[in-house]
């Protein structure tokens, strides 16, 4: 996400004459944790360094991020861009917002940038492509391919062609989502970390390293994962010497 905003989107916007600003925000936790990113662009000079609380576009890079967090502060009538394999789940959100979707992981996989089994696939180029489709739609301006291609060469010396193709594919494949009141079941959370299974030896590694204090011990030393606190960073899964915890792509009928 940081890469997409700072190395692709903002430099392209700068080249076509905008004042721009792009920054991520995250805490002390590391790879896998939720990261927010902010992008401003304007024909006037940008001086502010605050977070954006009422965006014109909200973009979700990952369905594991709670949907409420993605739409927080996004006024009605504004744009929502979602990376999802199951767009129909979000049809209700399209009732009062302009929702666009793409399957960025598929695009990355098709160009050899990501592997199907990656829990955190690289999708920056595809997401940047989808952003520029919306950008063109909103501003009526087109971004020349040669310019984008030049930025890619500077930012991504490895797999430049593949990434540029992913960018172009995403720009072509991003779709508006038809609104519907009926689906009625878009997920609270598609993903979760499983409770430790029988292989768990109560070694406490996960408990010690959980940055969100989402893992607790009971009197009988059983590890309990609190879904409300868990940010799906995956540190516990990486650390567990017995592979007793895993990510679960839920097919539960979690509805709101």
């Amino acid at each position, binding site marked *: 996400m940081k890469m997409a905003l700072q190395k692709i989107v903002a430099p392209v916007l700068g080249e076509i004459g905008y004042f721009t600003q792009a920054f991520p*925000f995250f805490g002390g936790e590391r790879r896998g944790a939720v990261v927010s990113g902010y992008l401003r662009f304007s024909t006037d000079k940008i001086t502010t360094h605050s977070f954006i609380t009422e965006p014109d576009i909200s973009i979700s890079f990952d369905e594991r991020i709670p949907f409420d967090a993605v739409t927080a502060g996004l006024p009605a009538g504004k744009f929502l861009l979602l990376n999802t394999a199951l767009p129909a789940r979000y049809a209700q959100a399209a009732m009062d917002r302009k929702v666009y979707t793409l399957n960025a992981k598929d695009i990355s996989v098709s160009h050899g940038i990501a592997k199907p089994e990656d829990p955190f696939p690289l999708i920056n180029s595809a997401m940047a492509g989808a952003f520029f489709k919306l950008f063109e739609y909103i501003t009526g301006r087109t971004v020349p391919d040669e310019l984008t291609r030049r930025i890619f060469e500077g930012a991504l010396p490895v797999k430049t062609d593949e990434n540029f193709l992913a960018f172009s594919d995403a720009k072509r494949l991003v779709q508006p989502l038809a609104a519907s009141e009926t689906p009625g079941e878009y997920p609270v959370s598609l993903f979760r970390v499983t409770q430790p299974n029988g292989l768990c030896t109560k070694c406490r590694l996960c408990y010690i390293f959980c940055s969100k204090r989402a893992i607790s011990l009971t009197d009988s030393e059983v590890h309990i994962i609190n879904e409300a606190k868990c940010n799906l960073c995956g540190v516990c899964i990486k650390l567990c010497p017995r592979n007793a915890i895993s990510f679960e792509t839920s097919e539960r009928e979690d509805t709101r």
Partner: protein
Amino acid sequence: MNGRLPFGPMVLTGNEAAALAFGLANPDAFGGYPITPSTEVTEEIAELALKHIIDTTYRNLDSELASIAFGIGVSTARGRYGTATSSQGLALMCELLHWASTARLPIVIANVNRSLGSPWSIHPDQSDSLLFRDMFLLQFYCKNVQEVLDMVLWAYRIAEGPGVSLPALVCFDGFMLSHTAENIIIPSKEKVLEFLPKRTPSENFNLPQYRADEPRNISCPTDWMKHQARKRSLVDAMQTAEGNIRHLVRREWTQIFGGAMQYEVNDGFFSEAGNSQSDTAVISMGAIAGTIEEATRGEDIGLISLRVFRPFPAKALHAKLVHCKKIVVFDRSILPSGEGIIANELRSRTALFPQQIYGFVGGFGGQNLSEKDFLHEIRTAMNSDHPEANTYWIGDKS
């Protein structure tokens, strides 16, 4: 040399801008020890040195203490040295940083402002660098990414100036500047060399082989009067720096770079916005200055954002604020007295600043300081008549 430093308009983060500024200053050596959020400065310099785009000798070091020790060696041997760090890393340098300042070594340290623990935080406040406000250490602060690049160049120029020869900190807020990509203009290497020529070390502070009679900065004076003279010269050096900033920056910077850098340097010590004739002035330092500018657009308020904290530009500020009735200060630091540090600096000079001073503090632990927050607090101050010694905590719900 295999490549060239980029030149002209670009979109870069504060860390990348700092690295390029060091590249343009082309120090003889740069020492690196990583710490969030300044690590990228070190990484970028290492890459520029590896690709021979700059002549700088880059060294990975054992710690920040080793980094400042390396700097003392390089600088004592007439070289130009740079390093980058943050919070706990800067604090670890403390002992030798004091040596570097009293030995009059013009080392430049980029300090990406980050909270000092406890509790653990990687987010910005300015307590880490302001901890060193009682050292003979020049301190520059940046309000945007362009200033990050510029202040590194200013810092070398002022620090190495004749009669100054003191180390300098260039401070910029973690994340809000270090990780924020913005439009900047990179000056050409030739122009930078014109503004910042190769270091000419002050003769009085050299190693014996360069000047035999008095190698003052490493010897142990047996005469207390000589020792005292050295202490007094530190005060003179700070005052000289204050004079130099006004002249060098105002004249030479503007002459050499002209309108190309696209902002007013004013008199160097601070930048201004809003209505400078207003009864109310708001003083801040760092990235929040730009947010305050956005928040108060169209309001009858004068804005001052400090670029230079040490030497503290008391005279220049007094001249600018003399007509004001109220001064509102936004600090990202807190003292045991319950005040922010800029507010404390002003209140300790009542003869120069007799106005009502409203002190606000905030921005700790990753708190977002929004336009609404600032406007609300400023209006509260404007409609109030009792600043007293009270400090207002931004966003305090109690």
